């Protein structure tokens, strides 16, 4: 009877382990499958085509060129490989400039025909029109070739405008650089402070102070990030705006400061544990050779616990890179490549959180956010593996 009971418990435990593993695996598979869907979407909004005059020698425009043409930044075909001719961008709503509602018919039945006439009459026109109308225009209208979204444009693109028409811009660089920029600065702030506190707690503080301070610091790790966000928004942002005399206080620097505060508990706890794990024999050996306390700390204790300290740093970076809410609240969320600490930036997690609600399910934008999720996932995997590898390199005495 007892045997059966033990077997039962054993299989229950095995089952729960397997379930957890499968769930995690499913999440990862889901993430990557949705992400891969992104690259099956067309460069321009689905259901639409771009049409030009048949005599136009240009057969293809890149998403970036399309955007700039429709923003009137490129105004001549020669800039995109065509003849020296002015570009006239045309959206379907512009039809009212050419024809009245009566001329188009009650149910727009003459619309395709009229569109054909406009395009045929204007050699420099590029028209963004629904696919169903394009088929019924005339033989003097040619559709531009549109391709699938391509990874090179995604990973090398410097513009993130996922809702732009006709061609949404999915450029990863501003978001990736924003994330790394904020994370890096956060670590640069948190590292000296965190290590200082860890060394103080591990080596200098007397037992009473340590017993008070350490739980307090560990408590910091448990504060919800939205609370840090409040603090950042109400205290840090106005402070930065005033101190540095900026037009807005919501900057990369504000995000870095908040992230630094949030990464501190991790860094302090892990590094302090590493420092305290330095064998007493090491300290005694050093002191026994006439070294003083400081020399012992920086010549023996820190080198001995360096792997633990590095793990602390890497885990701190992981926290900084993956953090969403607080950063979303204080960085201003402008998806531009940052040039200084005092500009608004937007991080990858903040982008996903802010945009997923408004991205239509299954669309290119939706897919793009999943690709961002995959990238974030890969970054944190690399960070975790690094931390794991480093902390295994503990010297054995």
């Amino acid at each position, binding site marked *: 009877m007892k045997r059966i009971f033990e077997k039962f418990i054993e299989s229950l435990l095995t089952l729960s382990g397997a379930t957890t593993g499968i769930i995690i695996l499913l999440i990862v598979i889901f993430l990557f499958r949705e992400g891969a869907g992104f690259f099956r979407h067309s460069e321009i909004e689905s259901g639409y085509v771009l049409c030009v005059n048949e005599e136009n020698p240009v057969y293809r425009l890149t998403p970036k060129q399309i955007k700039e043409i429709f923003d009137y930044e490129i105004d001549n075909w020669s800039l995109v490989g065509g003849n020296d001719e002015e570009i006239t961008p045309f959206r379907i709503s512009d039809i009212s400039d050419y024809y009245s509602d009566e001329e188009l018919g009650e149910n727009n039945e003459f619309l395709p025909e009229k569109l054909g006439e406009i395009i045929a009459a204007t050699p420099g026109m590029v028209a963004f029109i629904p696919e169903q109308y394009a088929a019924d225009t005339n033989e003097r209208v040619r559709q531009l070739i549109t391709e699938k979204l391509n990874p090179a444009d995604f990973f090398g693109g410097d513009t993130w405008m996922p809702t732009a028409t006709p061609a949404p811009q999915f450029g990863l660089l501003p978001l990736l650089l924003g994330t790394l920029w904020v994370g890096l600065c956060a670590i640069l702030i948190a590292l000296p402070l965190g290590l200082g506190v860890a060394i103080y707690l591990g080596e200098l503080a007397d037992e009473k102070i340590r017993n008070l301070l350490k739980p307090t610091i560990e408590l910091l790790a448990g504060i919800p990030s939205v609370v840090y966000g409040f603090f950042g928004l109400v205290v840090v942002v106005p402070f930065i705006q005033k101190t540095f005399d900026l037009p807005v206080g919501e900057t990369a620097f504000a995000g870095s400061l908040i992230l630094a505060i949030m990464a501190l508990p991790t860094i302090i706890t892990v590094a302090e544990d590493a420092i305290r794990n330095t064998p007493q024999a090491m300290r*005694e*050996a*050093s002191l026994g*050779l006439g070294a003083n306390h400081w020399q012992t700390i920086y010549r023996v204790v820190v080198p001995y616990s360096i792997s633990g300290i590095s793990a602390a740093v890497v885990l701190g970076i992981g926290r900084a890179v993956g953090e969403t809410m607080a950063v979303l609240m204080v960085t201003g969320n402008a998806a531009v490549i940052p040039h200084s600490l005092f500009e608004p930036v937007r991080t990858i997690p903040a982008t996903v959180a802010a945009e997923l609600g408004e991205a239509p399910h299954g669309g290119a934008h939706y897919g793009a956010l999943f690709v961002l999720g995959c990238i974030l996932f890969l970054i944190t995997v690399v960070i975790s593996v690094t931390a794991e590898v480093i902390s295994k390199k503990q010297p054995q005495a």
Partner: protein
Amino acid sequence: MLETKNIDFYYGGFHALKNIGMKMEDHTVTAFIGPSGCGKSTFLRLFNRMNDLIPDTRLTGECLIDGEDIYHKSVDVTSLRKRVGMVFQKPNPFPKSLFENVAYGLRVAGTTDSRFIAQRVEESLKGAALWDEVKDKLKKSAFELSGGQQQRLCIARALAIAPSVILMDEPASALDPISTSKIEDLIHILKKDYTIVIVTHNMQQAARVSDKTGFFMLGELIEYNDTKKIFMSPEKEETQNYITGRFG
């Protein structure tokens, strides 16, 4: 010369050493034996003030090196520890190269003359009978050595700062018999230049290496005499019982 007068030592409320007075002459090897927890290591660690690191301890009495009370307020602990080297029970090299391990004491003392350091490292490694085995791998990590080599490295490290006294706290208890005999040979050689105090659990070792032996029990120094006398014809019954293995 090491000398103690009326030493009493407490860990919190625990009375670990009781009224101990003894003298150790220069260039002799003195062994402390006794059952675990008898206070022999605590007593050894008084001489380089290693017990200062343990919180909530208290010492009364006098502990003199060459007539100077090393617990006097005017004594600088770090310079005291440069005069009194210590070798620990488990080999505890630093996570550094062999060379840097031996050079450590010189570096923390502020020596920057690299030729002097190199020379001192070589002398110390020769002094610890390790030079021939490691002269080609001074840049390697100290952790690559065997346990016995690591312990001799720790001895070399202690020799490098040119102490006059070397304290050894069960230096061979973690080593195999061959490494142990190398350490014992080394103690014989080092005796010429240093005053050595060794704590050991191994009575044969005490008999082999020491000139004088002190037998400790329950925080008291039961008997202290020439090693031959202690092992051949002890005066106290407790000593007799211990060395013949009736308890301990």
